[in-house]
């Protein structure tokens, strides 16, 4: 309890700012000082955010984000292990992969619809791609950033590449993978919503599109706020998970 009070005291400025913004948001539209059409009062937005139709669209977004994310993590780690084990493979593929990463998912989404049809799959593929690359890059880094002495030690006992990978490289890479996770989780949520925005028919992203079309900006802004809440929530999950990892696997011990 003491630390919570301390926390609040240290962030007095920030809290004051947030309260002020929320207050302005609530009262300026209601007083007519700001167009309540395009900036609905906070109360209206809050009501929309917890309305049944919106809450029904929460699970699809979460589902898309989580499934795409999991495949992205598994794929990213898997490919990084292969790259380190078979350097020729990395040389052959990395150019293509980094090129693919440069293409905005917004451009790829309609193509995926043509390939994968409507439904969850094209959206999941988008989320997969944004998760895959940060995980891949960070994991390869972690697998390779090793004290040469450790590698010499393994070599002096005639360890195979596979043994070195499993016993030396992989445990070493865990903190790096964690960094990759921290980077990619917010993007997973955002990309799920972006794909829904572009491809439609369900999910929070679709609600944004709907809100624009029917000119209901409490819906549009409500979904934006949901995106923020989900993003923060997911980040907190990663932070908490980090605390649960045994100390021995971390690079820095704080």
């Amino acid at each position, binding site marked *: 309890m003491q630390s919570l009070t301390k926390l609040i005291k240290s962030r007095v400025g920030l809290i004051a700012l947030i309260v002020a913004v929320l207050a302005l948001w609530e009262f300026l539209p209601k007083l007519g000082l700001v167009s309540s059409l395009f900036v609905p009062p906070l109360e209206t937005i809050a009501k929309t955010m917890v309305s049944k139709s919106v809450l029904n669209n929460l699970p699809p977004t979460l589902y898309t984000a989580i499934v795409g994310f999991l495949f992205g993590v598994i794929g990213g780690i898997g490919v990084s292990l292969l790259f380190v084990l078979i350097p020729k493979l990395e040389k052959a593929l990395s150019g293509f992969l980094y090129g693919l990463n440069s293409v905005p998912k917004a451009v790829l989404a309609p193509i995926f619809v043509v390939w994968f049809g409507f439904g969850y799959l094209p959206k999941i593929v988008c989320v997969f791609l944004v998760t895959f690359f940060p995980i891949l890059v960070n994991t390869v880094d972690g697998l390779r950033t090793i004290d040469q002495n450790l590698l010499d030690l393994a070599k002096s006992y005639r360890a195979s590449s596979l043994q070195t990978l499993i016993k030396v490289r992989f*445990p070493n890479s865990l903190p790096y993978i964690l960094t990759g996770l921290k980077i990619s989780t917010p993007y997973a949520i955002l990309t799920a919503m972006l794909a829904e925005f572009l491809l439609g028919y369900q999910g929070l992203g679709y609600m944004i599109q709907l809100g624009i079309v029917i000119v209901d900006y409490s819906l549009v802004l409500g979904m934006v706020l949901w995106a923020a809440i989900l993003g923060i929530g997911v980040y907190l999950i990663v932070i908490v998970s980090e605390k649960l990892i045994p100390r021995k696997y971390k690079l820095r011990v704080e």
Partner: protein
Amino acid sequence: MAKKLIEVKNVTKIFSSGKLENICAIQNVTFDVYKGEFLSIVGPSGCGKSTLLRLITGLDTPTSGKIIVDGKEVLAPRPDVAMVFQDPTLMRWRTVMDNILLPIEFMREDKKKYLQKASSLIKLVGLQGFENFYPDELSGGMKARVNVCRGLIHDPSTLLMDEPFGPLDALTRRTLDFELMRIWHETKKTILFVTHDVREGVFLGDRVLVFTERPARIKAMINVNLPRPRTDETEGNKRFIKLEREILAHLGVEKG
């Protein structure tokens, strides 16, 4: 007559680096090591002593010449020769026990068979009770001890030690020197011990191999001929002082 375990014949090692000149680390070095001997190797910093050890271990190959260990030429790392590196480089995610057992895992043998051995090695170096500690919970001296245990776990006939106590303070080093000699007496291994500390080299060794600066060539091979076991009194021995002076003179350092 003692048997030759290691024969280094006309070994030269040249590193071609990306920069302009090639670096000749070792030039035409020839010497033998006898089975069961404790050979100290001293020389200026950076002269190539570590490189030599790496060649004998098989981590690198000579540019010319060859190295024979136990009758077989060294072309790759082999199980009967273990290297104790200067930096212990323990795996931070493994306990002391698991770090010591690492070579067994690499050699694909059953760890359970070596638990007893690991425990007795831990006891031998005075680390009982620390089996489940992690490297970041250990002092430098403790890590060096774990390093030695790791080198001994699979019972190699030959131990190559590259300034294993280098970064430690003098007191810890002295303690570990005595411990190492005790281990050597009990296990009768052949040990090559690289050190920059001439006193330590004379104190520990049967012979002392003195190298020049880079490129390393043999300046002298000196028979220590002091009684064993070596004790605190050894360093006061007239011959000890004479040997130390002689070697320092070879290295170009005058002692006041």
